[in-house]
């Protein structure tokens, strides 16, 4: 089980226990549900876009495993205040990180604390957990009501 420390790093366990931005934004300009039919994880993502087109506020609620909760929590911190283009680029980078081959060196440029999810590469079954919040955020920003990871 010691290998699991690579996956369940202290940062992930901490954000799972006390997720950041775990709240509802009343009358959010954008929101979407994220749903992983395989394991039943379900979250709602709220986003408030300001007049300058950047993310004024972002939050989430719902139930899920430690990976999906911590990922949602760290994501909200990471994308707060960013433009939609920056967020899209972040998602691409994050997706590449968690789906890249474990034999290659993890590319974490620009991902900040999100680098802790490099351990997910060893667990392909858990990639959907790590990306659920990102899919929901993208769906919210594109005006789609529900995002599924399948």
């Amino acid at each position, binding site marked *: *089980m010691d*290998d*699991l420390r690579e996956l369940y790093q202290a940062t992930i366990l901490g954000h799972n226990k006390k997720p950041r931005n775990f709240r509802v934004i009343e009358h959010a300009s954008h929101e979407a549900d994220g749903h992983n039919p*395989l394991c*039943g994880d*379900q979250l709602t993502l709220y986003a408030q876009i300001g007049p300058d087109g950047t993310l004024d506020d972002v939050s989430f609620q719902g139930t*899920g495993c430690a990976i999906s909760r911590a990922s949602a929590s760290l994501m909200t911190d990471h994308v707060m205040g960013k433009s939609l283009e920056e967020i899209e680029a972040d998602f691409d980078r994050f997706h590449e990180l968690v789906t890249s081959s474990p034999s290659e060196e993890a590319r974490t440029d620009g991902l900040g604390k999100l680098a802790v999810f490099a351990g997910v590469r060893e*667990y392909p*079954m*858990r990639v959907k957990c790590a990306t659920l919040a990102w899919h929901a955020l993208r769906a919210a920003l594109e005006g789609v009501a529900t995002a599924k990871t399948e």
Partner: protein
Amino acid sequence: MTLDVEKIRKDFPILGKEMRGRPLAYLDSGASAQKPQAVIDAMSDFYSSGYANIHRGVYQLSADATLAYEAVRGKVARFIGARDEREIVFLRNATEAINLVARTWGEANVGEGDEIVLTWMEHHANIVPWQMLAERKGATIRVAEIDDDGVLDVDHLTSLLGPRTKLLAFTHVSNALGTINPAAALVALARERGITTLIDGAQAVPHQPVDVDALGADFYVFSGHKVFGPSGAGVLHGRFAQLDAMPPFLGGGDMIEVVSFDGTTFAPVPQKFEAGTPDIASVIGFGAAIDYLEGIGMEAIAAWEHELLGYATERLETVPGLRIIGRAKEKAAVLSFVLEDAHPHDIGTCLDGDGVAIRAGHHCAQPLMNRMGVPATARASLAFYNTREDIDQLVDALRKTAELFA
């Protein structure tokens, strides 16, 4: 009759495998069971020296393959107590069998305003085909309650059986909770009222003796891959009169008598429901699985699993923050549980790190999960090849998991 588990384990090559540096503790037989060498050999031998298509060739190889395939039909009939081997239809799995009944018997017998009664503990395979039928026909699905221990409320179920009820379909053993339903009594309630019955036996046949004749249901379905046979061979048992009256399912070769462009007449039961080349080798392998199980004895299997269930329940309850979901007195060796601080999905990954294979999720029973008030559970489902050591390995790994997430 007692069971020599150490000897049995040697019959299952995969159980000798290491997983992440630990002996594999395979506790997911409810999803699919492992295969004894006898099954693997039977399939390999059949492909090496006995393979040809069935019901077609006039040459020796095809005749022998046909005989071998049909012999399994007789074996299955004896194994589950069917009166007549023509009552055994080979399909891919239990899901396909339920869909067949919904598409044929259901199309012919369920109409607008009719009702189909199910229970809260059904697998999606015994919900969705009926919902699809109800939608096509304008019929209604009614659902019998269960209590917080996961025990069926038979009084409530009885109250749902009315003049418009056309079908009662229920699981023999719950895949997610392990609850054993009083199947014969439920069938009797329905038959008194002239209601057709279907039993989903997917989780019963691998673990206890089943006598379909004594149960008396119109239809009984199960999957060979959960009965230690290969995937691709499943069974629909139907009472002969029912099967005979039903329209065919898929059209094609093997299910016909005479075909012309003016019209086609269909083969008799069971060939009427077995269109096209079936999964011949899987049926052969399934036959070997039944031989193997009969060599051990289903009574002995049920007794050992019951003993393991008692041990596992006791041991799991020593894990801090663990709650068992499903506490029926009549219960098969299925242990669904949640941990206070760890999500089932994380439990699954952590246990895997210690070589323990369990299932985490909704177990294809989302309504049941909602009823029990949990989004998902972790589930250890046992088979006769499991040991107390497997349970100990599970419990040790769970303690570590609870610590990691504390």
